[in-house]
């Protein structure tokens, strides 16, 4: 039981990641896939940040009452990863907007049937 309760951050991140992954694969609407992608990537960010927490540490900003700081390196890595995620979402949405103009709708199965 302690195995489940002590590692709750991992359970949360796995749960979110699988929801996002399922949405990316199983949903037919193109925009829902992108939303799933965002949830998937956000779960990974959550994982990184949750492992940076040090017991008894405060936020990694210089503060005179702090005894210990959290690890700031994963925060920096995630900043970069968030920028990557935002750029990917931007490219994906631009693509969807052009697909909508060309095909008239954004349901994947209808687009595939139109392509045949």
């Amino acid at each position: 039981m302690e195995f489940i309760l002590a590692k709750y951050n991992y359970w949360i991140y796995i749960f979110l990641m699988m929801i996002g992954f399922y949405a990316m694969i199983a949903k037919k609407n193109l925009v829902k896939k992108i939303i799933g992608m965002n949830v998937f990537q956000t779960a990974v960010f959550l994982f990184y940040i949750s492992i940076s927490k040090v017991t008894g540490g405060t936020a990694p900003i210089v503060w005179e009452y702090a005894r210990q700081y959290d690890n700031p390196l994963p925060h920096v890595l995630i900043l970069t990863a968030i920028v990557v995620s935002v750029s990917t979402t931007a490219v994906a949405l631009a693509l969807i907007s052009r697909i909508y103009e060309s095909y008239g709708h954004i349901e994947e199965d209808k687009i595939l049937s139109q392509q045949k």
Partner: protein
Amino acid sequence: MAQHLPILPIILPLFAAVLIPLFGRIRVQYAWFFSVGATGFSFLCSSWLLSQVMTGRRVRYFLGNWEPPWGIEYVVDYLSGFVLVIISFMAFVVTVYSWKSVEKEIPKEKVGLFYAVFMLLVTGLLGIVITGDIFNLYVFLEISALSGYVLIAMGGKREALMASYNYLILGTIGATFILLGIGYLYMVTGSLNMADLATLLPPLYENKVVLTGFAFLVVGLCIKVALFPFHIWLPNAYTYAPSVVGTFMAATATKVSAYALVRIMFTVFSPGFDFKMVPVTEILFYLGMAAMLVGPVLAISQTDIRRMLAYSSVGQIGYIVLGISLGNQTGMVGGLVHLLNHALMKGGLFLVVGAIIYKTGITQISELKGMGKRMPLSMAAFTVSALSMIGVPLTVGFVSKWYLGVGALQAGKWIALPIILLSSLLTAVYFWRIIENVYFKGAQGQESGRQREEGPPGMVVPTLGVASLCLVFGVFAFIPVSIAELAAQMLLGKT
């Protein structure tokens, strides 16, 4: 200045990518000049770096002069020098070739942006090869991937948009898995530097976190490499992209991901881990053989020539992965030399196809009848590259298949040998269809079928150059093989 050499192949295309939107507004040709200059200088720097590495030392460069493991470092050793030269050479050749093709296929107001994003793609690919920090690998991987999505979507037809979207979804899954793998490894070791991880990981090989991180990294990279079950994005992406983009990505993008896989498996983790503790090389061996069969079989039934070449690429990637997974010196040399060979062969084939599309707009194989008389030089280059893909002696294709076959026998996995032969036979089948149409069937319904309308010199000269390299490196095979042998020794040396 020579000590700053490792950074130059990265920042020159980056500067070009940023300056092209500014200067391309004045005259569009400036975009092309900047691109050719940047890739040319990158190629010169990469060659200089390789010559420095061949004297025996590893070139290391610290960004910001911060010592690793706190700072990011760039490392050039035999393997990265080898792949750097391949990538920068193909970038230079494709950029020189590209002007006419881009002028025809891309709307005029977007040509400047096209070259800017193309330079970003080159930056990303070169950065993946040269970096020694695992998170920097992820960043450059995403730079190159995003540039790839944008470039593929610039293809004229609307299928290009769906192809780019599918590539985006699968590529992001792969990249996020790589990010997860990096996170797991960081969690147990606290370091992101590849050389540092190699010293910190061995006591931790039994740890489940390390195993999970390794699994995520390998699966993510296999998606990017387009290994057999994960190859679904590749045919559509290469078919509907603009010709220049299809050429460049077919020649380089999957090779660089294969390089990253080799780095992770053999430099960060050691050969002892891969072969004795985790069955990853067995899995890659069987997947590689499956790819070698599935690719050509699917290629035979295609009617569009670019889609056929794309499925052929799926098969060739199987060769590279097979070479990596064999585990002995000869097999690894075969896999690494095939990196160079496939870049030359597939690059040459796609260059010819681009010239055909530029001159005639033909994309279906059935319409290629009589092309041998219309475009003799281009078709000669195509034939040489096709013979090389089949594996005829005196061409580069034979060199890599020889090493793979001998390596398979030495590793005791003799089943790979008939699969390699069968795959070469199937390759001959689908190339014979084209060669038969090109040379042995007359042009339909034209009495002046023997008029020559060869491609413009800007396209034909690079094509002939690449095809002749297929012959040169096939005869003088010791040049790439010696570098690959040193690289393989270095990779397999630790246990």
